[in-house]
């Protein structure tokens, strides 16, 4: 199963993860 997030955010938004990284519920994905 997969979850796709699509969202609007300011252009300054940056992801704090890299492709292939393991993540857990509540872990930071991105921030301004």
């Amino acid at each position, binding site marked *: 199963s997969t979850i796709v997030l699509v969202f609007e955010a300011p252009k300054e938004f940056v992801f704090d993860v890299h492709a292939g990284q393991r993540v857990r519920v509540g872990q930071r994905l991105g*921030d301004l």
Partner: protein
Amino acid sequence: LAHAWRTTPTKWYPLPLIVGALLLVAINFRKQQRRHSKDEPHVQLDDNGREVIRLKGPWSVHVLGALPLRNMSRLWGYLNSLELPVWFRPTGFRIYAFIFGCNLEEAEFDDLTRYKSLGDFFYRRLKDGVRPIDTALLVSPADGKVLHFGTVQGMRVEQVKGMSYSLDALLGSPASPSTPTSQTISFENRDHAIVHDREFANVNGIEYSLNQLIGASSASKSNQETPPGTPDDSQPRKHGEQTDASIPHPDTPPSLSHDASVAASVGLRPSLDRSSTTSTSPQIKPQNRLFFAVIYLAPGDYHRFHSPSAWVVEKRRHFVGELFSVSPYMAARLGNLFVLNERVALLGRWRHGFFSTVPVGATNVGSILLNFDRELRTNERTTRGAGGGGGGGRRGLPPPGTFTEAVYSNASAVLGGQPLKAGEEMGGFCLG
């Protein structure tokens, strides 16, 4: 052989040279074709200018497309719902945990005999506090692997490098924001309110004009005519179970403090402007961009998903579809994977505008549950919409782009949708 190799003279004839030259030309032409297809993904449009969603990939995915994946998925779910003997449960679940890398120490129950079936174990909860919620703007909605992320370019979402799919097809938005939205739709059966193409469906068997449905007046209408449901989010639903709840509703009315808390987090006032999502296509502010992220849940992962931010879910769109595997292997090979598979697009807004979360089903995990929506039924046997619409292997399924929609305007009178805090459990995936 050595002697022959050394002494036999080599004679060159014109024919092999010509064949070789033709081969070189063919190889070069093929290379150019591949480069071209990577630079400009082929998008076939129908007579209305909308993209035709087809199965795209090597022969192996076409073979998979010919399999009865939905039936296999339901059979898999049935088998895994069978109650296991108590003596076998600890051993069986430990073997499963060993194979798929589950951390049993995080499971809610240390006593594994409390999980009656593999399906029950698969949908296990975690102990309180084992998943702290970060204070970042966006947090992970699930345990899993980040497959891909980035910005949406030209209303297309990149599946893998060089392969993309339409955002409209994923979320069910119209091809153009200027698409007329004044059609009147009647529904014969509220449980099967399928509306084709870009139109909208709602429940209650009442005629709604689309303008009413997506406009400000729709909220009051659906509020008045909707009996509340009483969901139980702790138990996965069985196939075929029906409820009388007509419009999704939280199990208990959300408290004002909860609404106010989410409202503060979302950065909106109760009488908020819903223009960003009550239209059928996200209207992006000039200073903003559309971002996307894809998280893959492996079979051993915790399979409930949580809210990735503080936001308000205004509507859900259920797309009945195929149930291909969504593993990274398939995602890299099967084009349109996420718009072919069965999925539930939850659309709403957060402090920066449009926000959506789309759980996508897979062969082994075809059932998607929402804690605040008992009406939702996924991976059901379907005979409607036969004809396929050219989807390629979509026997008996509604055409791609078809969805049923429910609005959550009655979930919170304050926010006009289902408010969720960051990290709040939303639902999950069940086997089959």
